[in-house]
């Protein structure tokens, strides 16, 4: 029993953190967000490092690592708020890896792992996917539901680009008939995707908590740092509680994916439900700690706040994942027949 990362995993985390810190200063993130652009150079670099295929088998051009490693990368990407098409690419990769046939995996995963094939995945409901990351730039769009999925070429899909609150990520609405069916376990793919998002939210929480704590140490009002007032200090403590909760939940869900898949469905929905709420509350709290300056465009906080809100909505709200927990946990099951 050990909740710590392995040495290799720690090395991945450290490398990711350092690299992302170097490539994505907050000024750079702002520049990209305001231009509604991604950093293609940095993205190429991440692809060369094998990030998109981190969980893909080596046979299909990936690194053959696990979901824990994906969780590590997502947390750091959230912490850095890096505007790159990682989530979309990884989502498509997860969909194909978990729900694709051998043939489908062989056909598409090598391109996804190397970054040469732009792909994405979205949650389909009532014939459309209303919020799909990077669909406009994707060559391949996977539409998933708990019951099944299908792969559309870009030309088969009707893609309507959307301007969302999250300027650090691109979204579109997708409709489209047909496509190639995915006959494997799409639910398993969705569980891994929402775990990845929960990890990203953990990084967002961690970063904005650090920003709030730093501000609370520095900012003086009435002759002392505002962090010396309980209203602010206890709010920061609450941020810690929720950030650590999101972290425990997403690490655990990642671990179940690799080591105890029967526990994964519930762990994944728990992680997404908790991290979605935590993401919004922690970032909104960070804004409150900052006061007026936190409400200005020129402060960087709002980019994180908006990412947190969009992530909370993406691939199922907190409420919908709680409902799934109620189902899966058996807690709210009907009484067994007497």
């Amino acid at each position, binding site marked *: 029993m050990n909740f710590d990362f392995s040495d290799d995993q720690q090395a991945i985390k450290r490398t990711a953190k350092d690299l992302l810190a170097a490539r994505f200063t907050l000024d750079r993130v702002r520049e990209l967000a305001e231009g509604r652009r991604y950093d293609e150079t940095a993205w190429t670099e991440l692809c060369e490092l094998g990030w998109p295929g981190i969980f893909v088998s080596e046979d299909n051009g990936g690194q053959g690592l696990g979901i824990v490693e994906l969780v590590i990368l997502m947390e750091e990407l959230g912490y850095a708020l890096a505007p790159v098409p990682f989530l979309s690419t990884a989502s498509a990769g997860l969909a194909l890896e978990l729900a694709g046939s051998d043939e489908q995996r062989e056909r598409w995963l090598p391109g996804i792992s190397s970054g040469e094939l732009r792909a994405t995945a979205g949650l389909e409901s009532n014939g459309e996917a*209303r919020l799909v990351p990077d669909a406009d730039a994707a060559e391949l769009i996977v539409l998933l539901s708990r019951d099944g999925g299908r792969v559309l070429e870009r030309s088969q899909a009707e893609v309507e680009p959307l301007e969302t609150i999250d300027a650090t990520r691109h979204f579109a609405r997708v409709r489209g008939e047909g496509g190639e069916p995915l006959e494997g376990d799409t639910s398993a793919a969705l569980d891994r995707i929402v775990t990845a998002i929960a990890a990203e939210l953990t990084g967002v929480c961690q970063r904005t908590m650090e920003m709030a704590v730093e501000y609370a140490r520095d900012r003086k009002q009435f002759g002392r740092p505002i962090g010396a007032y309980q*209203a602010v200090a206890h709010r920061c403590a609450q941020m810690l509680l929720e950030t650590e909760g999101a972290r425990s939940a997403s690490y655990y869900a990642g671990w179940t994916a690799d080591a105890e898949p029967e526990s994964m469905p519930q762990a994944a929905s728990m992680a997404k439900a908790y991290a979605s709420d935590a993401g919004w509350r922690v970032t909104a709290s960070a804004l409150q700690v900052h006061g007026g300056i936190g409400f200005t465009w020129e402060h960087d906080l709002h980019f994180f706040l908006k990412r947190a809100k969009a992530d909370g909505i993406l691939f199922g709200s907190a409420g919908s994942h709680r409902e799934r927990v109620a189902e899966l946990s058996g807690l709210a099951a009907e009484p067994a027949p007497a």
Partner: protein
Amino acid sequence: MDLTLSPSEEAFRDELRAWLADNHPGEDPPDDDAAFEHRRVWQKKLYDAGYAGFSWPKEYGGRGATLIEQALFGEEMARAKAPSPANVLGMVMGGPVVIAHGDDTQKERWLKPILTGDEIWCQGFSEPESGSDLASLKTRAVKSNGEWVVTGQKVWTTYAHKAKWCMLVARTDQDAQKHAGLTYFIMDMEQEEVQVRPLRQITGEAEFNELFIEEARIPDENVVGGVGNGWTVAITTLMHERAGLGASAAAGMRIALNELGELARERGVTDDPVIRQRLAQLAIEVELLRLNAWRGLTAIMKTGIPGPEGSVVKWQWGELNQSLTELAVDILGEDGALWDSPWTYRFLRSRANSIEGGTTEILKNIVAERVLGLPKLR
């Protein structure tokens, strides 16, 4: 206890409601400058109809309205979704301060153009380094050759780029205790020494501005309430701001609640018991905001002084608007992430409700100390 309107109050309300139906200027145009002109025209229309400076004494061009009438006025304006008139700060804060603390010359000079909207007023209290802590202001005014030379920076100034006059609080005595060394000025904005920079918000708009003041000049006769009395004068301003908030804020929330109900129907979620519980809770809190505001008004009428109750209403309103817009965005599901949605805008904008006009933390301090008599917080 009589929560119905008296015949004369009812007549007033009906008259106003009818006038608003005939004279409502429509929504603001999207362009900022056009929107401002639209509001300036609206101000003039209000003035011509005798509704500008509604609460001011008649001798200063106002209508000497009772508190009830003022509350009704606020309610009806909110109900009709009338735009806020261009010179709202002049009417709500500037005028009342001049009336309370100004001398005759000042009253003669400033009051009428506030009401007509010919001269727009803005407010220069907040500074980057002193948000809630007004007494720590750093902007300095030094007397030189019979006039004051002001240097410093102000923030959160609405309509600064349109304003002729700025209600400015600056430090005139560096050695005095924090509160004591402040003075309240009316500064002419039409001088190069005052630079205005728009301050963009997380919603993308720039409702507010920053002021950069570099040796701006203010003649001595523009001091209001005497040198060194700036703190007292400024507090009067803020108390007026909060006391007037209640009824119109509640009416505004009532409208928002109805819009939210409409949204829930459109989206087909009205039979979801979780949504129903949240909607009902909001309905209750909107009603309580209204009732608390009216109870506060009754108390003011009895005592004559706006008390700390305004702080409760402001705090309550901020939390309520945040909950209400959060539910709207939850109902919208994936569309809640869309940038161009009015609800998303309101949702983001609401994050400032617990900061602007007194942070919730400060308002709770006021309630604890001044309403409950708890020891001063340390």
